[in-house]
């Protein structure tokens, strides 16, 4: 089996661990202003939403417009679990399970989008996903038991910076591994040419179902984190405006790029917060900046490129060897 160099293999994992340490220390020792801490958590949640939507819209080249619907399912399922089913004291310990429950619920709902996607594409799929977003919102509004149009409250503030950090890492890691593996490469093939993909053996239906479910799962988890940060959720939190925000973050950062999603989510969240002093004019200026960006750089900040650090180490090593071999140094040692 191949071996990459020590630094190449361990740099990222160590950085991730360092980040976790920092994420734990910040609230524990009150290292920064609680407001900034809140913003960091929002960034994390937005990163999860952006990366998960990017999988479908960017890597797979579809046009899903109702991502907030999955967030809603996750938020409500997780909240119902912690408020109604899990004893209060067990909340912090079982929080991950509640989140996973939320994500699973969202994943199941994703089938309602995945199956129509077998036959429809592009603009028509946009409608299907939009309709689903509206339907989810409508269904929630009609269920009195979870507050209906008045919203649902009572959640404990279980979302903390370390938890958000952990879930962001899990999201990135899972989706990264998926994309760079055989089952996930089918996603890219579908984006490039769905018919050709099917004709070289990619089981496109299977790939689509997996991608949609995966995408919805992490949106659902993000929704659960969101719910336990705000401690109050309302159908209006998850409507088309929210979906549009997530779309903007995806295309701002760059489709098909994990780093792009991180950047897009971060910049968007921070920008929105920074411009808060402008009051309502904030949302007059922000879209103008967005339009300007699109005109100047239509593929988003990262375009289709990926940051080296987010490519799995083994793949990086493999590509490095191929590059070296191309330079005429056949059989040279790797890295």
């Amino acid at each position: 089996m191949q071996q990459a160099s020590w630094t190449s293999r361990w740099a990222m994992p160590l950085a991730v661990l360092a980040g976790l340490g920092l994420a734990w220390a910040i609230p524990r020792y009150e290292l920064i202003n609680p407001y900034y801490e809140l913003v960091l958590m929002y960034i994390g949640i937005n990163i999860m939403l952006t990366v998960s939507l990017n999988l479908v819209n960017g890597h797979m080249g579809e046009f899903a417009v109702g991502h907030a619907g999955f967030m809603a399912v996750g938020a409500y399922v997780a909240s119902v679990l912690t408020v109604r089913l899990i004893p209060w004291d067990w909340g912090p310990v079982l929080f991950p399970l509640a989140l996973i429950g939320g994500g699973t619920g969202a994943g199941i709902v994703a089938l309602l989008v995945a199956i129509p996607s077998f036959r429809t594409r592009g603009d028509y799929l946009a409608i299907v996903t939009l309709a689903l977003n509206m339907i989810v919102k409508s269904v929630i509004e009609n269920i009195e038991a979870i507050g209906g149009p008045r919203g649902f409250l009572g959640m404990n503030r279980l979302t903390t910076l370390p938890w958000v950090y952990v879930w962001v890492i899990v999201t990135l890691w899972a989706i990264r591994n998926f994309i760079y593996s055989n089952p996930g490469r089918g996603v890219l093939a579908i984006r490039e040419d769905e018919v050709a993909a099917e004709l070289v053996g990619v089981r496109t239906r299977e790939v689509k179902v997996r991608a949609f479910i995966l995408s919805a799962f992490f949106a659902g988890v993000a929704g659960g984190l969101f719910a336990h940060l705000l401690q109050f959720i309302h159908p209006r939190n998850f409507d088309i405006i929210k979906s549009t925000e997530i779309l903007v973050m995806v295309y701002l950062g760059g489709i098909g790029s994990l780093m792009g999603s991180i950047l897009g989510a971060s910049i968007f969240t921070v920008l929105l917060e920074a411009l808060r002093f402008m009051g309502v004019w904030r949302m007059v200026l922000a879209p103008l900046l967005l339009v300007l960006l699109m005109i100047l750089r239509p593929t988003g900040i990262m375009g289709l490129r990926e940051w080296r650090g987010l490519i799995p180490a083994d793949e990086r090593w493999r590509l490095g060897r191929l590059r070296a071999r191309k330079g005429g140094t056949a059989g040279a040692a790797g890295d």
Partner: protein
Amino acid sequence: MLLEIRDLNLRFGGLHAVRNVNLQVPEGGLVGLIGPNGAGKTTVFNLITGVYQPDSGDIRFRGRSLVGLLPSQIVARGVARTFQTIRLFRDLTVLDNVRIAHYQRARYGLWPAFLRTARVLDREQQITERSMRLLEVFDLADLALEPARSLPYGAQRKLEMARALATTPRLLLLDEPAAGMNPAEVGQLAELIQNIRDRFGVTVLLIEHQMKMVMSICERITVLDFGQVIAEGTPEDVRNNPRVLEAYLGRRGVAMA
């Protein structure tokens, strides 16, 4: 017979694109499918590979019917193809184009993929190595990391073939692989196709307009015109067949020839 097509029919609204087509391809053979433009040749390929479903008739591959299967299922059975207009994954690297064709042969599942286990790393290495070996056969190895769209035309056609072969097919359908090539390139391609047949043990069914190549390498040829088979036989049979001449040159053309 590796492939048997019996009484195949397909209509597109008012157009009877494929009419009672019968076609047989013996195992290990190199068979040509020719005919004027619009005769329905690519449509037959599309029917074999499951892109279209026939209105009637049967397509039997290794004794089992392919009708009603999804294209990816047909690929799993051992049928691969290239396209008349090149359909590569343009923004992906040459290497990835071939690696993707290993989708059904990866031998690891979704959950190991998430965890990127040792087995996954192992298999990924093997897939990459196998893909590179395939690219070497087609002289494309040095271009492995280039985006597919940047390749010259001839190289793109070869990449399509490499990609198709990555699925380890028993039957390879080539749709006008020589389109746009000059005579020298066509000669090389003819050699390449025969090499592929011998080296990979695949049976080849070939759609082509370049008559010299078809006549020189095909063992048997079927001729289509307006969706119907109008001739079938060895290259000699077909070359001198008056109906074939008429189909290509028209009646007046034949009179003048």
